């Protein structure tokens, strides 16, 4: 106990103490970029984008699809595809144990979620990578789930949208994960030949085997502001060329400048933009927000 706390009457709190007692724990966050204090409910309402500086914080796959899809008519599928440890891979830990840790941490069975639904009444299949699951890495289950998503798009002739967030191929599945690059690219080529649109949305970060396959194969490639995407990670490149990388290297603004993506779209505009693009590609009329009958709030 410091001398100050001894002389201070017990009922009087310091300012710091005051905050913890009057504001519930964890309601304030600090923007990692501009350091502005952010009131969490406000941040959430703004889709986890800092209202001050537009910084896009990372969000999980479920939330991603939740803020993207229409509320009505969502159907998750391909979730019965589970990871397989064909190699009985083991380093300092068993891959099997790494998987169960990731499953407990995220509540997901693997790193990709697939849903049939609609965005502003345009029907589609949407997929999203869960970065918190083993770095969003692509092994058999991710590749297979993505392929099933694309096959459903093909069968129903409805567009496919993928939100990627990944470190790349999953090294614990060794060459099986490398082959998922070929597999996902092959099914996307079928979509392309059938004239079924695929929109790839890159969210921070997208690297390696996913970048060099499905993520770059969109009819339209989109990135969120400030998202990093590339083949080799910055560390690898710096080690290879032994020089510092320029600021903004591999960020979405860089990708746009070098012709890798079509546009940068803010998360708050994503739903509208993707719906508008898809409606054009599908020859549908301009989409409008579906009217949702919400219960009237009587105070």
């Amino acid at each position: 106990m410091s001398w100050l706390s001894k002389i201070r009457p017990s009922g009087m709190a310091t300012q710091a103490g005051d905050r913890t007692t009057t504001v519930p724990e964890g309601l304030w966050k600090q923007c990692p970029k501009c350091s502005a204090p952010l009131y969490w409910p406000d941040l959430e309402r703004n889709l986890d984008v800092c209202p001050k500086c537009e910084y896009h914080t990372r969000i999980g796959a479920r939330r991603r699809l939740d803020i993207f899809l229409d509320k009505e008519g969502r159907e998750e599928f391909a979730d019965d595809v589970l990871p397989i440890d064909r190699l009985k891979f083991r380093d300092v830990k068993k891959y099997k144990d790494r998987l169960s840790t990731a499953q407990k941490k995220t509540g997901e069975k693997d790193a990709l979620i697939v849903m049939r639904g609609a965005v502003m009444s345009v029907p589609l299949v949407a997929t999203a990578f869960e970065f918190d699951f083993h770095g969003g890495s692509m092994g058999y289950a991710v590749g297979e789930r993505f392929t099933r998503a694309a096959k459903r798009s093909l069968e129903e002739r409805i567009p496919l949208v993928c939100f990627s967030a990944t470190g790349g191929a999953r090294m614990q599945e060794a060459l099986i994960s490398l082959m998922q690059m070929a597999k996902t690219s092959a099914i996307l080529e079928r979509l392309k030949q059938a004239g079924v649109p695929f929109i790839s949305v890159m969210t921070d970060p997208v690297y390696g085997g996913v970048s060099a396959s499905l993520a770059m194969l969109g009819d339209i490639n989109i990135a969120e502001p400030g998202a990093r995407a590339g083949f080799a990670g910055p560390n690898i490149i710096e080690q290879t060329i032994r020089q510092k990388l320029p600021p903004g290297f591999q960020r979405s603004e860089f990708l746009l400048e070098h012709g890798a993506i079509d546009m940068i779209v803010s998360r708050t505009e994503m739903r509208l933009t993707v719906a508008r693009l898809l409606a054009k590609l599908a020859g549908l009329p301009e989409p409008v927000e579906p009217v949702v009958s919400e219960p009237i709030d009587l105070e």
Partner: protein
Amino acid sequence: MNLDYLDFEQPIAELEAKIDELRLVGNDTDQLNIAEEIATLSEKSRKLTAGIFSDLSAWQVVQIARHPLRPYSTDYIERMFPDFDELHGDRQFGDDKAIIGGVARLDGKPVVVIAEEKGRGVNQKVYRNFGMPKPEGYRKALRLMEMAERFSMPVLTFIDTPGAYPGIDSEERGISQSIAQNLAVMSRLRTPIICTVIGEGSSGGAIAIGVGDWLNMLQYSTYFVISPEGCANIIWKTAEKAPLAAEAMGVTSSILEDLGIVDETIPEPLGGAHRDVDAMVATLQQKLTEQLEALQQQPLDALLEKRFERLMSYGNG
């Protein structure tokens, strides 16, 4: 230490050195018992080599696959295709020396050859960028594959790369897109494709010319999603654990055949391809000829459906 031999081959190197010495002495003295001694030692060396090579660890295979004397693509092209016409450039940016492309004949039949080349010796290594292709390399490969389709020429690819080039210019020109595009197009290219890993098949840089109807691996070649050093760096935070990583990832042809990824392992001469390059090339040439004939007997639509279904099956338990 003889640098032409890897550390685990040094007992062989010592024997071979003795044999060479005896040969020199034999030339001077012309004694019969020296010829006998040479024969005995040669047999001993052969047995020793067979013994060492019958039980190689994954890491030792990786080392053989990267052996400085190992035949590279140019060694195969020179011997297999005396009429090879090299074709250059991606028609957009430049000509990547890490990928050699051209037209040739295999057993009289016109084929398109696409090969990654590491380059031997310092100058060639620099010229070939150590076998690390940039986007223009993969785009040259794509251009030639599309040409092959137009003229109904089968495609033969030779894979040997430490990976696609990780550099600023590579990223600026869309290395990811160039690899992805090749994967997509190769999955439906209307001509037979045979891919052969002759040395080191490293990740995206390898699979970018590695999608086809038949995948060969030479006996002591290696194919991985990340280099053992890279894997070790991530898990153990040091490249020194690469042997453990190589073991864990299963980077050799026997394991990859079991996984249904590799179709055929091409046997190498005793002690590896570099101990008898001519024999290695002859074996591969023979195999490719047979394989191509088998593929060409199938109707093209059936072949393409089979290629696609196989791609779809990767990883299915």
